[in-house]
């Protein structure tokens, strides 16, 4: 039931995200036409582009942008051909269009669309092609900067350590007592996730995987909720494809490492299937091994990113129409979606954990049911 709902939700959000991205492309081209007369900045000032704004908001960033006046710069850490390069993101002076050049170790760096590019040897300014892609600069792949999302990961980790260590302190005191204080809040959820593991993983094996599932659940939940707190720069950590890729990879690796003969038997010799169908079924099953973690990755990414995009888009109604009166529509809708997003925060954490438990359970199963 829940699975079906989440799939419907995922489809809806994907449709929405695609719609928004198309809108963004359309306006992008529109803007380029005007570029002859005015600079891009002026164009943005003149015409508020909601789609671009929303997408930009969902991206990672090199700074915590609370308001235009309150911006916390973050350290940029790059691994280049000439070794490690570090500087604060404030050196770009909030430039995001590749204009401001930072020079380190004889290399020139610019920030363009929330990515750091290194200018090619001899270039003094970024040149763009018709598609507005830089032609004489390349993206830095080994970019270990402590970006907004990276810092959020640390914040989530610290929050989790604080919450669960103080909860654990209650239990370490010993004796049989009803949970109180923070333990009273934490225990039902911990037991809930533990039960999810117990239900999906055969026998006593769940005990081996429960710590991973618990950590994943609360990591996603805390990340989701942290992104929903207004005025905290709304980091879209769990809506970042990098993080969902990472988490899905963990589940996939655990699945592969602990997989038993029974699991592979189901793939290469599906029971109860005529041998004639093997050529069709086996490739499907093999694809399924990879589709499952991919679905995990996309589901969480799409749900959380879509939530962020919807919230920003609804707020943007005011700015698109350039009238505060639209707040009468925009604010209640945003409030509604934000509340829904709290539900989604829990739901997606649950679904990711439950499916991870299911996949791991399938891999470690030794007997038929």
């Amino acid at each position, binding site marked *: 039931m829940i699975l079906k709902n989440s799939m419907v939700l995922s489809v809806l959000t994907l449709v929405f995200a695609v719609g928004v*991205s198309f809108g963004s492309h359309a306006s992008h081209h529109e803007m380029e036409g005007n570029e002859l007369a005015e600079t891009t900045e002026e164009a943005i000032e003149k015409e508020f582009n909601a789609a671009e704004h929303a*997408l930009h908001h*969902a*991206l*990672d960033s090199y700074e915590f942008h609370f308001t235009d006046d309150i911006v916390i710069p973050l350290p940029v*850490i790059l691994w280049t051909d000439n070794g490690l390069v570090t500087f604060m993101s404030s050196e770009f002076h909030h430039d995001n269009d590749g204009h401001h050049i930072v020079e380190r170790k004889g290399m020139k760096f610019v920030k363009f*669309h*929330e*990515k750091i590019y290194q200018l090619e040897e001899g270039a003094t300014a970024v040149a763009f092609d018709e598609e507005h892609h830089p032609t004489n600069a390349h993206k830095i*792949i*080994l*970019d*270990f*900067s*402590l*970006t907004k*999302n*990276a810092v959020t*990961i*640390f914040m989530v*980790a610290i929050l*989790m*350590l604080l919450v*669960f*260590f103080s*909860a*654990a302190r209650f*239990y*370490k005191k010993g004796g*049989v007592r009803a949970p109180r204080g923070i*333990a009273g809040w*934490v*225990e039902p959820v*911990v*037991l809930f996730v*533990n039960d999810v593991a117990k239900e999906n993983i055969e026998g006593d094996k769940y005990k081996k995987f*429960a*710590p*991973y599932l*618990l*950590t994943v659940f609360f*990591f996603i939940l805390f990340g989701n909720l942290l992104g929903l707190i207004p005025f905290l720069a709304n980091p879209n950590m769990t809506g*970042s*494809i*990098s*993080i969902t*890729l*990472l*988490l899905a990879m*963990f589940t996939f690796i655990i699945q592969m490492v602990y997989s038993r003969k029974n699991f592979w038997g189901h793939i290469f010799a599906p029971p109860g299937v005529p041998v004639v169908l093997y050529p069709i079924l086996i490739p499907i099953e093999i694809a399924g091994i990879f589709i499952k973690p991919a679905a995990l990755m996309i589901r969480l*990414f799409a749900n959380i*990113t879509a939530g962020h995009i919807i919230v920003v888009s609804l707020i943007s109604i005011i700015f698109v129409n350039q009238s505060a009166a639209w707040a009468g529509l925009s604010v209640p809708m945003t409030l509604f979606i934000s509340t829904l997003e709290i539900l989604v925060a829990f739901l997606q954490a649950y679904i990711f954990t439950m499916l991870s438990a299911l996949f791991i359970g399938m891999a470690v199963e030794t007997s038929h049911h």
Partner: protein
Amino acid sequence: MDIVTPAVGQIFWGGLVFLILLVLLAKFAWKPILGAVNDRERTINESLELAEKTKEEMKNLQAENEALLKEARAERDQMIKDAKEIASKMVNDAKDKAKEEANKVLVNARETINTEKAAAISELKTQVAAFSIEIAEKVVRRELAADDKQAALAKKLAEEINLN
């Protein structure tokens, strides 16, 4: 599109932090929490079992108590009955004894009376005999005052002896 392009930095930091977090939480949070909850579950189960057992025992004990009470009550009734019997027996015994005693006293009294009566009669007889002898003496003295009469008597007595 940027939004679906994974970034090396985030994967690196995410992986590093997540693995450290997993190790720390598994050791210092999940283990104690789940361990304590398991312990508690076991304790609660044991307590419930014990309660059930105690209830059963209480039931048995109650039944036993009831039986004991019943027995005690029966015993008490028996005792009261016995006491009553003993009491009435004692009263009867006392009555019988008293009667016996009274009879004894009566018999004694009667015997004494008889003895006294016999004594009195015998004394009376002695007295009467003495009086009779005195009277007889006086009569004889007067009869034998004359000599002829003495001779007649002696003669008569002699005759009587001869006849025999």
